């Protein structure tokens, strides 16, 4: 045997091999692509599976041509056989991974020319202009995606509708789940008002980019790749952990279910796709393991910033792009990761994490305090909420024959301090049967606004359901909604009266005061003046009246009916200085109302 004594590695870790790692990574992306193709085929028809195939094929062909072109430019006669050199370069540059990732980050409706432009930009400018594989400072796929979304933004919002069982699938430019959530400012712990459910969100059955939606599959692929030492686990784990921690805290601060909120927030859009496929790119992330962790936390911070405080729907691509730019700086700063420095670095890492949570939490807290009713699901913002339900049993009391079904409607009526309805929220199982769901969903918003204009007295006096309060085809549920609303208000006795105040001076015309008094167990809980306000002769007195009316009404609140009936003059707070006669008129109106019969 011949002994080799030169400079050599004595043993080598089998898993540490670039070619092997790249092969596994390619296989992972191919899996993702196949799953995307199967999903498109099953959910929307074979045409769209073919479309997925064509997009990838075009992408790969474009990149192959670019590879060959660039290799031809670089070819020198000393490199050996020309064609062999070109093919070797194609194999060594791994541009096909870029092309595949770029294709998977685009929606199915992407026009072919946009795809070609994206590939040319990504491979030619972002990859080869910086020296090719291993030397590019930005992730080519991410920058290609960003380039086309900035230049051809309009063409990239064509998705297939998620649930198209009833209709022929056509490309629409409708809202995706991320844009819907973005409009809702992301603070939702339930997707009931959207067509997508949380399980669909994690399984990937909704409209989005080709490969980004399959969160669970992506995580499984990531796990295998980490186990095979293809990618580093640190950026992904620190990225997702930071987002999870922040969303959990924000959920608690906002009073919504933190777990559901986190699941929706992380599962929607490209957070998982970006974390598993782009953040782990070794070339564009920092070198040290600590740097990679820092990179993940910073990227998470940026994603949260983009999602919560920018008008742009998706922040993941932008934050990874920004982190690509920062990666060399992180490498530069972390010269050594000896435990001595490590302790200091842990402080940095954890303070950055805490900062991310505190920053977002702080802004959230500030937003709640500054504008209490800004969040629709925040009951504290309302003066009072009435809760009522109507179940199948309620069916027997309604006038028409009704088929008992499984529906249970819960209604929350949010009112302000004058008991004017601010909002009505529905819950429970609402018209889940068949195609009625669509009818109900389509009309419920306008129906609720009709109820809102009716007000509490109006709701209490509805008897036989008129046409404008019925959704045709969903009569039972319409009845049940009325019953639920009336059930919510059942403890409330409402008295109404109208008196005309005769003003002493000739320059003022007499004016009517219509008052609504809400009594619960003999105590006046709220009052509302409807017609009289603002018409007390006009001029400065009207202003005085309006300014004082709130306090005057508040003074009567909490008094018993007995106390009010025995009054001869208005109590101190209820006498508006400068509008004394009107104040007396108000008391007379209240007394008149209470003498009468309650409504309904």
């Amino acid at each position, binding site marked *: *045997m*011949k*002994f*080799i*004594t030169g*400079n*050599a*590695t*004595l*043993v*080598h*870790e089998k898993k*540490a*091999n*670039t*070619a*092997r*790692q790249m092969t596994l990574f390619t296989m992972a992306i191919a899996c993702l692509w196949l799953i995307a193709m199967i999903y498109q085929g099953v959910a929307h028809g074979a045409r769209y599976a073919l479309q997925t195939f064509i997009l990838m094929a075009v992408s790969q062909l474009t990149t192959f041509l670019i590879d060959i072109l660039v290799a031809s430019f670089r070819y020198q006669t000393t490199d050996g056989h020309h064609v062999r050199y070109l093919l070797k370069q194609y194999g*060594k540059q791994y541009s096909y991974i870029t092309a595949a990732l770029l294709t998977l980050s685009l929606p199915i409706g992407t026009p072919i020319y946009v795809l070609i432009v994206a590939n040319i930009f990504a491979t030619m400018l972002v990859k080869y202009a910086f020296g090719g*594989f*291993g*030397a590019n400072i930005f992730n080519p796929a991410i920058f290609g995606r960003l380039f086309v979304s900035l230049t051809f933004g309009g063409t990239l919002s064509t998705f297939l509708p998620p649930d198209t069982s009833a209709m022929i699938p056509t490309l629409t430019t409708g809202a995706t789940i991320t844009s819907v959530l973005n409009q809702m400012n992301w603070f939702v712990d339930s997707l009931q008002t959207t067509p997508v459910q949380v399980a669909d969100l994690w399984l990937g059955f909704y409209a989005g980019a080709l490969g980004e939606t399959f969160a669970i599959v992506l995580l499984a692929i990531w796990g295998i790749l980490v186990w095979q030492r293809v990618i*580093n686990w*640190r950026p992904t784990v620190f990225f997702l952990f930071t987002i999870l921690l922040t969303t959990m805290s924000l959920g608690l601060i906002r009073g919504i279910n933190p777990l559901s909120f986190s699941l929706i927030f992380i599962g929607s859009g490209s957070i998982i796709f970006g974390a598993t496929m782009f953040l782990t790119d*070794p*070339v564009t*992330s*920092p*070198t*040290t*393991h*600590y*740097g*990679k*962790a820092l990179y993940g936390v910073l990227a998470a911070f940026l994603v949260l910033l983009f999602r919560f405080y920018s008008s742009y729907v998706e922040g993941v691509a932008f934050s990874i792009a920004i982190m690509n730019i920062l990666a060399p700086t992180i*490498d530069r700063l972390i*010269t*050594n*990761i*000896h*435990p*001595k420095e*490590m302790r200091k670095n*842990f402080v940095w890492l954890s303070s950055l994490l805490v900062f991310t949570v505190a920053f977002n939490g702080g802004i959230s807290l500030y937003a709640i305090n500054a504008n209490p009713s800004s969040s629709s699901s925040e009951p504290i913002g309302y003066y009072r909420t009435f809760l009522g339900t109507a179940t199948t049993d309620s069916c027997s009391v309604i006038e028409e024959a009704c088929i008992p079904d499984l529906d249970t409607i819960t209604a929350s009526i949010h009112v302000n301090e004058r008991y004017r309805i601010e909002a009505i929220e529905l819950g429970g199982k609402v018209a889940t049967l068949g195609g009625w769901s669509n009818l109900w969903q389509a009309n419920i918003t306008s129906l609720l606004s009709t109820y809102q204009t009716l007000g509490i007295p109006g709701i209490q006096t509805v008897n036989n359901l008129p046409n404008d309060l019925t959704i045709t085809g969903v009569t039972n549920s319409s009845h049940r909604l009325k019953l639920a609303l009336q059930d919510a208000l059942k403890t409330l006795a409402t008295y109404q009266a109208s008196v005309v105040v005769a003003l002493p001076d000739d320059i003022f015309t007499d004016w009517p005061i219509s008052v609504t008094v809400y009594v619960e167990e003999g105590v006046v809980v709220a009052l509302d003046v409807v017609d009289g306000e603002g018409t007390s002769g006009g001029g400065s007195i009207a202003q005085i009246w309006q300014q004082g009316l709130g306090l005057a009404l508040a003074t009567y609140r909490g008094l018993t009916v007995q106390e009010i009936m025995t009054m001869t003059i208005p109590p101190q707070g209820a006498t508006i200085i400068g509008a004394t006669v009107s104040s007396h008129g108000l008391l007379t109106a209240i007394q008149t109302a209470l003498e009468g019969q309650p409504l309904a």
Partner: protein
Amino acid sequence: MIALFRDRYPYPYQAKHIHNAEIDDFQLYLQQIAIPITHVNGVELELLVKENDQVFVGSKIAARKETQFPIYSSVSGIVKGKVMLYHPIIGRKTAHLMIENDGKYLQASPLTFCKLDAPKEALLESVKLTGIIENKGVGNPLYQILENPKNSALEHIVINGMLWHGNLEKFPFDWFYLGVQWLLKILGLTFVDLVLPTTDLDKTTWTTSSLVNVHFLSPTIQHILDTQVINTIYGDTMHAFSGQSDKVIAFTLENIIQLGSVLSTGAPITKTPIEIRGVGVQKPIALTVPIGSLMTKLIEIAGGYVFDEALAYLGIPLLAKIVSEDQFVITPLTPSYAVEKPLTLNADVCTHCGACAGICPVYLQPVEIKHALQQDNTQRLLKLQPQVCLDCGLCNVVCPANLDMMDAVKKAKLKVKVALAKAAMVKK
């Protein structure tokens, strides 16, 4: 928490892959046995026998000039005189003493040692007599203690059994226990830390003593380095940034057993355990061979070589000694022998994956050092501190692109040393 940012790779030569060779020792004894009489530092030993002298198994034949650390004959016969043979550790031809084997294996009278309750100086004299100092692994640390007996900063003794192989199971536990007792007595401590790998081998015997504090570590490639074992069990506080700390001393398990065996039987070390492994041999083996056996003979027992061209080295895969031929004799200092398929370096492009930085035992960033070297950026190199590199080569082991990171770090080391020397000159 720090472990979050370190990588772990399994040790490639797990004990379960290595066979215990059940062979008759006598087939390894040659007609003429050559015993090296040169110390690893290249200085020849002082001969204690003359030509045509009769020697026995266990006769003292040579000793170091200043310290009188002895070596012993492994056969009985007639001294033939000096010959020059290849010494793999020194890397050139050195003096060996040739002994004509008479085939009788007559034993010299056993050595006599003082009792365990004797004063420290007497214990040290006895240990000196065992010949353990000239043995592999244990030699250097014990030598330092023998040279500076007043060194009292020592707090821990680590006995590294991470390179456990089946051969050790054949030795009685009493030998190990006796060795430990002597060590503790000499060094004035109360317990030793024994480090064993968490493999499926039976280790119950080794965990029964109160003098021995056993740690089970995962058999990762880092853990074959004493420095990493010390870092893992005591934390980085015990270990200086690089090099040995004077608070900890590390021995290998097999040497403590050898020390115990000499102390209990009185017969000096005439045999040594050796391991032949790697993909380049047909059947990896572990066996105990007489000193003076030829490596070629052992390769025959291991079934011969697999490749026409291969890389052979002595010792653990890190800090190893590459050999240029296998025509050498086994000495007490000969560590394990491995034959591997050579790997081509500079095969691919660096992807900045950080594997080298994640495994470096002294927390360097080889990839950054390589870049700074390419850019000729001395200021950056000074920050990256390549001078603390241990030359262990773990960065090369884990590099997916097969890059020669170690070479870059070595060059950077030189550059930084020159820069530091220049700076010192300017200061003066």
